[in-house]
């Protein structure tokens, strides 16, 4: 079988790598057909970043409406669309894809692999996500965006209570669910099967642990919401009454199915950030992570326990004291592994030699803001307190502290950390400093007062409020804060743009880190590693042996934790296929072959989009046209894809 090494396209201003392409392709075609995990990772990051800005804009509009009481900046209906789309966009189109993007780029490198386990499926996941996101946002111009909240409680989603926006929401999330499940499948198999020789689970970087657990959560949580949405679709269009009390159904069935997904979902959102922090803190403290085993196993514990606490979102639905106590217990229990992680992170910094650059600032800032969110979460875990706090701005504060102060801060730490590896040059530190402090300050000004608004009894999801009810001070403060927060994010965008024009002269390991992704060029060549790495410790590039796990310093470790003699070649023995330099086509002796670029994953994803668009059009002829077109796309893409697999 012929294997073409996809030509490396360098970002603007970078020096072209010394890999020569066998042929020249157009820029667009190259990115449309890529199956390279690095390019796909960048696609995820760019698209996720764009949706993050869109979601942010939606948030600013929401805050503008709430700046003053009885504002007529937006109608009630438009406001409801805005907060629905803000949440849906941030969760499904921004944070999750950025997590996946970083994971896509870094995880194969971290485990020493050539690519993900299923590169074409990887491409398919991305395109399906992009089209799903476009589908969801098409609603704005096709009858109105969904306005039922991102959690769409039945029976509000029944067709007598909500319009076509709900159909976009129901279908869009199902599309995105398929994309997520396919992506998670890839991560699980990659991490289980494609680790470099010698990299046992015990030596695997914590970001990989986090990604593995996250992927398993996706695999077991998304089917629940997909079925839940499926049933909404049937209720709306096929006469069933799953959630319709009048027809014998039960609205609470939706809540149970949804939150069975919904709670693991929040761990899906935060675990990658936990993993990033666990990578960043040791590097910039110049010492190993404090309590590796605990952090690894607590991630697994959190993942598992995450499936047992869903109904703490339903304390006020009248489940009764016994059920409430059971779920409260689980919710407190899950706080234990989370809490101890925090102490372990502090233990990592403690006694180190801290380089307080931008990535490290975000990482340490993360610990503080996430802790605030975790603590307000503990309050919410107690049902009686929850009776006063749920569905108020207290929860809005809580969720933004864990999702923005947590996940987003973690992602920025990761972006600043891995930026030189991905793009060949680091982000600017001075601009980064401004970004961090502006964002930290603006974030707290925006969201901390919401705790008080919740305590004053301000419900969430209200398009306006009345004057002289205690909400008049903190709402405008939060709104002004949000504008500054938007500006802070733009500082990051400016940083990215400005540095894009700088020379791509990053070294292999600018931060003197320990994991495998830093053992190759920045950015890596198409095949990642010239020679398959072999791993003998948790910190391959630091060369700290396992024997010293419980204390004592290592003689070969220099004053900054990096061995001066850390390099040796071992892997030639593994290349059963002979010449190491053609290893671009072969991976690890497991019979994996890197596929050539292909357009079929994108076509298949397009076919799915077209099929679902058919559901929305009412004229039968238009429906048929779309369905037939979709079927053609399916046949062409699946045949072409399968042919490529068999070749």
């Amino acid at each position, binding site marked *: 079988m012929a294997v073409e090494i996809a030509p490396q396209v360098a970002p603007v201003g970078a020096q072209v790598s010394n890999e020569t392409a066998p042929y020249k392709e157009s820029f667009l075609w190259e990115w449309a057909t890529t199956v390279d995990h690095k390019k796909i990772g960048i696609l995820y990051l760019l698209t996720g970043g764009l949706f993050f800005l869109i979601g942010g804009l939606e948030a600013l509009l929401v805050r503008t409406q709430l700046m003053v009481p009885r504002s007529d900046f937006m109608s009630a209906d438009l406001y409801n669309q805005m907060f629905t789309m803000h949440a849906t966009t941030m969760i499904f189109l921004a944070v999750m894809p950025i997590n996946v993007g970083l994971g896509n780029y870094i995880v194969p490198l971290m485990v020493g692999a050539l690519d993900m386990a299923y590169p074409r499926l990887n491409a398919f996941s991305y395109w399906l996500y992009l089209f799903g996101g476009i589908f969801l946002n098409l609603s704005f111009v096709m009858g109105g965006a969904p306005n039922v909240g991102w959690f769409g409680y039945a029976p509000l989603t029944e067709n007598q209570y909500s319009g076509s926006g709900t159909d976009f929401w129901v279908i869009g999330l199902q599309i995105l669910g398929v994309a997520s499940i396919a992506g998670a499948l890839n991560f699980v198999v990659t991490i289980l099967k494609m680790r470099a020789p010698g990299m046992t689970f015990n030596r695997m970087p914590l970001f990989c642990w986090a990604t593995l657990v996250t992927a398993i959560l996706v695999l077991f949580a998304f089917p629940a919401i997909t079925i839940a949405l499926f049933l909404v679709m049937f209720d709306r269009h096929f006469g069933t009454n799953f959630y319709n009390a009048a027809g014998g159904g039960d609205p609470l069935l939706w809540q149970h199915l949804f939150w069975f997904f919904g709670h693991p979902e929040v761990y899906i959102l935060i675990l990658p950030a936990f993993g990033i922090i666990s990578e960043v803190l040791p590097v910039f403290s110049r010492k190993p992570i404090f309590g590796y085993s605990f952090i690894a196993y607590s991630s697994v514990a959190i993942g598992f326990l995450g499936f047992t606490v869903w109904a703490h979102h339903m304390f006020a639905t009248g489940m009764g004291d016994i059920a409430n106590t059971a779920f409260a217990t689980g919710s407190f229990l899950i706080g234990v592994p989370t809490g101890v992680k925090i102490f372990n992170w502090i233990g990592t910094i403690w006694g180190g030699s801290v380089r307080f650059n931008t990535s490290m600032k975000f990482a340490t800032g993360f610990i503080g803001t996430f*802790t605030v969110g975790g603590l307000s979460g*503990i309050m919410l875990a107690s049902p009686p307190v929850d*009776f006063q706090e749920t569905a108020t701005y207290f929860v809005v504060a809580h969720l933004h502290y864990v999702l923005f102060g947590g996940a987003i801060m973690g992602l920025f730490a990761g972006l600043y950390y891995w930026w030189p590896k991905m793009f060949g040059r680091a982000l600017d530190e001075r601009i980064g400093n401004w970004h961090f402090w502006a964002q930290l300050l603006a974030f707290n000004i925006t969201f901390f007062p919401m705790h008080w608004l919740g*305590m004053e009894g301000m419900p969430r999801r209200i398009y306006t409020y009345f004057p002289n009810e205690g909400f008049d001070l903190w709402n405008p403060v939060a709104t002004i804060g949000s504008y500054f927060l938007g500006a802070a994010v733009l500082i990051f965008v400016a940083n990215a743009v400005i540095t894009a024009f700088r020379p791509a002269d990053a070294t292999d390991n600018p931060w003197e880190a320990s994991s495998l992704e830093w053992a190759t060029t920045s950015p890596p060549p198409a095949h990642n590693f010239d020679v398959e790495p072999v791993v003998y410790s948790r910190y391959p590039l630091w060369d*700290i042996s396992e024997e010293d796990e419980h204390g004592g310093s290592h003689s070969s470790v220099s004053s900054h*934790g990096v061995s001066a003699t850390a390099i040796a070649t071992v892997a030639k023995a593994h290349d059963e296929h002979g010449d190491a330099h053609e290893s671009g086509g072969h991976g690890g002796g497991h019979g994996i072959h890197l596929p050539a670029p292909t357009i079929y994953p994108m076509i298949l994803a397009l076919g799915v989009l077209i099929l679902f668009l058919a559901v929305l059009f009412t004229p039968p002829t238009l429906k048929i046209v779309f369905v037939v077109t979709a079927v053609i796309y399916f046949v062409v893409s699946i045949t072409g894809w399968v042919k490529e697999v068999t070749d």
Partner: protein
Amino acid sequence: MLMGATHFATPARRWAALISLTLLGLVGCDSRSPQSWVNPQGPYASTIYDLFLPILITAVVVFVIVQGLIVYSVFKFRERPGGPPAQQFHGNLTIELTSTIITALVFIVVLAMTVNTQQVLSAPLETPPADAIHVKAIGHQWWWEFEYQDSGFVTASDMVIPTGTTVIVEVTAADVIHAFWVPMLTGQVAGIPGRTNHIWLKSEKDGTYAGVCNQFCGIQHAMMRYAAISVPRPEFDAWVERQRMAPVTPVSSANADQSLVLQAKGAQLFAAGACKTCHMIRGTEAIGKVGPDLTHFSSRTSIASKTLPSTVENVKAWLRNPQAVKPGTIMPNLNLKEEDIDALTAYLCRPVDPSINSGCQVAPTNAAKK
């Protein structure tokens, strides 16, 4: 804590400022809010507050410790030219175990307090006091119906209760999920179509306690407000008696004065026209159940679920075009003629409960404050 530093670093200062601002803010938060549950006015709400406060204090302490450690360690162990190398320890079983156990213990204590509070809160539902009154709260898009089960009448938006008496509230909904919440008196509970939930409240002082719908229920979720109006028991009993009676329908006669003529015309319009399909006025042909019961409308403090205070002008504005006042409301614009609006308003706002000084029955010059 910052020993070894040569000067106070800016990060530390900023965090100190933030923390003190936080604490000040907590102390000085605006408790004039009529919905503030940190200002509880009834045993249910204060029981919850008594659980909340220690948890809050614990949380603040934990945060100060955590954030303090972060700031301290970043500062103390910052890399310095010629400074000490990083200490290469991988962990410390004692510290890890201790922190796990302490965290778990704190949670166990909170859990125990939680279970105890739950028992206190549930007790009146298991064995209601003998003099408790029973109200059924039914959420509709976007108003609350209150059925006084002991006395057999229905009203909307104004839930009058006797001070010092337990009120058992049965909560459900007619269309989508809503939530019943009077923050100063009680916790919230969902009103779910097809199901019944229970909660209780009791106020210890006369007054008006704001209520909100606290589960997103559609376009006008924000405007689904009501109030628990707590009055002394004798006053409550009198109110109940008046509510149970159907008011007399005004009938015009030959030498009736102008206002009675107008009221009678309004009554006729109401009973004959579209109004009766959705609204009920006991004692008339209007028996609709889609919209709020309007039997004693004129004494209610607000219209459209406290979207507006109840005055003659506001009622007319509503009748002119409900969609303009509360877009998306179920009541359509009936395109009424101005003279019909005047008649209907005269009918709906005629004094039915003259002993109550509220609602549109009160002439503008002595209109009660909202």
